């Protein structure tokens, strides 16, 4: 049963980085029925940050920013003018691990860079520095529901503020020992450029409401493993619908007791 009313936006562009999925066109080909060859996620360097900032960023920030840049580029948008919503279950797990190791040692000296990279909005901060975006940037977490929470935040901004919004959902592996308690196998990021009005070249209109219907799964076993093990990849059934370029309604995971119904038209 869906609970009205729904949130809606036009989807202008997608960016994606995942295991064996270097960009959205490759991912769309796989999701539309192509062969999926799982390979470790390759995260490109960031050219858009000044040298000092670039050296300070970890792979998780590069993951998020690259996905966002792809969506902005494909949507021919001006990143500097866009509000952004970042959402991630664990943020920079390696940085967190390094801090906890240091604090467990006798020295306890955390480097300034490590500390400022520890904030959950590190990717949002570097995004502003890289693109000059001075609009609102959010940084959300909802554990396994992080993609859904980010989608809701982005859609309410589109609807209430009547503005285009860039949503970036990303997650990456922890190193051991955190990996053993939160086994995220590899890095995955997806960016959606959402806008209130339909423009030529828009991919689809999304209409989202809360539902208690069960979430869709992926037919392909490795893709289903990816969906089920990486919070940002809970978006995969929606992305498959987009890749197929057909109208329809799909259900994606959200909070434990709720899912999101997404009407793709």
């Amino acid at each position, binding site marked *: 049963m869906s609970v009205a009313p729904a949130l809606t936006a036009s989807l202008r562009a997608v960016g994606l980085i995942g295991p064996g999925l270097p960009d959205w066109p490759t991912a769309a080909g796989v999701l539309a029925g192509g062969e999926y060859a799982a390979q470790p996620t390759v995260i490109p360097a960031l050219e858009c940050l000044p040298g000092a900032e670039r050296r300070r960023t970890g792979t998780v920030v590069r993951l998020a920013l690259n996905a966002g840049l792809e969506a902005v580029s494909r949507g021919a948008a001006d990143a500097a003018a866009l509000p952004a919503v970042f959402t991630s279950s664990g943020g920079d797990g390696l940085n967190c691990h390094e801090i906890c190791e240091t604090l467990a040692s006798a020295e306890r000296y955390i480097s300034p860079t490590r500390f400022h990279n520890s904030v959950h909005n590190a990717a949002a901060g570097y995004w502003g520095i890289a693109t000059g975006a001075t609009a609102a940037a959010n940084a959300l977490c909802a554990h396994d529901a992080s993609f859904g929470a980010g989608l809701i935040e982005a859609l309410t901004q589109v609807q209430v503020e009547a503005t285009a919004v860039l949503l970036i959902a990303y997650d990456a592996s922890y190193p051991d*020992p*955190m990996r053993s308690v939160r086994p995220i196998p590899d890095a995955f990021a997806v960016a959606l450029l959402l806008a209130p009005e339909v423009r030529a070249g828009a991919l689809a209109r999304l209409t989202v409401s809360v539902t208690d219907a069960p979430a869709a799964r992926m037919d392909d076993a490795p893709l289903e493993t990816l969906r089920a093990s990486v919070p940002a990849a809970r978006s995969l059934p929606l992305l498959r619908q987009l890749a197929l370029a057909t109208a329809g309604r799909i259900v994606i995971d959200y909070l434990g007791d709720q899912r999101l119904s997404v009407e793709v038209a």
Partner: protein
Amino acid sequence: MRPLALTAYTATSCIGRGLAATHETLAAQRSGLAPCAFETVTLDTSVGEVPGLDSAALPAELGEFECRNNRLALLGLRQDGFADAVRECLGRHGRTRVGVWLGTSTSGILETEIAYRKRGPGGELPATFRYRGAHNTFSLAAFVRQVLGVAGPAAVISSACSSSAKVFASARRAIEAQLVDAAVVGGVDSLCLTTLYGFNSLQLVSRTPCRPFDAARDGISIGEAAAFALLERVPGSCDAGTALLLGTGESSDAHHMSTPHPQGRGARAAMLAALADAGLGPTDIDYINFHGTGTPGNDAAEARAVAATLGARVPGSSTKGATGHTLGAAGALEAVICTLALRHSLMPAGVNTTQVDPALEVHYLRENRPAPLRRVLSNSFGFGGSNCSLIFGRAG
């Protein structure tokens, strides 16, 4: 935006459990900061510690959420009848029509820090380690949902020191979009080693209780707090004096990860956005609760931004001299302090500050000032250049 009513609210910090104690401390111009004796920390600094958390274990049925942050959250929820007010609200709207938007920067990281000291011979974490319930940034919202029985949409916003100001903006959008009819908002941040040693490495921690806007200010004092508010549409018959959220404004510095834009560019944008959202002009603000962390750079940038947007005549203070900087909880704590200022017609002084920096063009209150207040503005600025300003008022 359409104003929203704060139909219930509460705050717990080192200056008191609940509204009455918090107001009493502010009215007495006392500080809750004390020399740091927290955990195994050996830094020479003052902190705003909430007493009693070490012995306040969660009830067994909430054991999966056990951590200092959630202990503090529960202590906060139990003050001022807040949990009862939420229960009544769920009765009015239905459990799924009420959402939860909470801010935290620390979550239960203290438990992870301690667990790393207790790793086994193979580096493994102790079997009692709880990732979802304690470590993950969402654990606060999952915990509060469970305690209150709220079943609507939920998220944690974790944007450093603006976290629990930004929740007001996200929640009001969700209400405006009719995704929910009401929202539990707030913030909880708790003392831990990461923030104490981290801010120390940035040389931003004062050895003395922090002195925002003082000529000799030399850094922050870290505190901890739990503050909550229940946001609902303003009812047709609204009690005079009901606290109202009138406007929210958010921006990004796009400048540096840990220092604000020197001219306060992002801070200006956030304040202007909040004024525009509320349909107000600069002369409509009667009191400013500054972000006012007490570091030389932050206070200077904020003073410039305030002078440029509201003018230098509006009286203001930072209450962090009393509470310490409660980081991810600061936005919500200071939102509640703003509602107390409105309710008691009292602008709270910035305690500890003895000589206001003459280089700062700012009307800084070093003594409490009674005055009828109509509208007040609260600033929250965080690492990553994340800014949020909130405007509160009262129903007439």
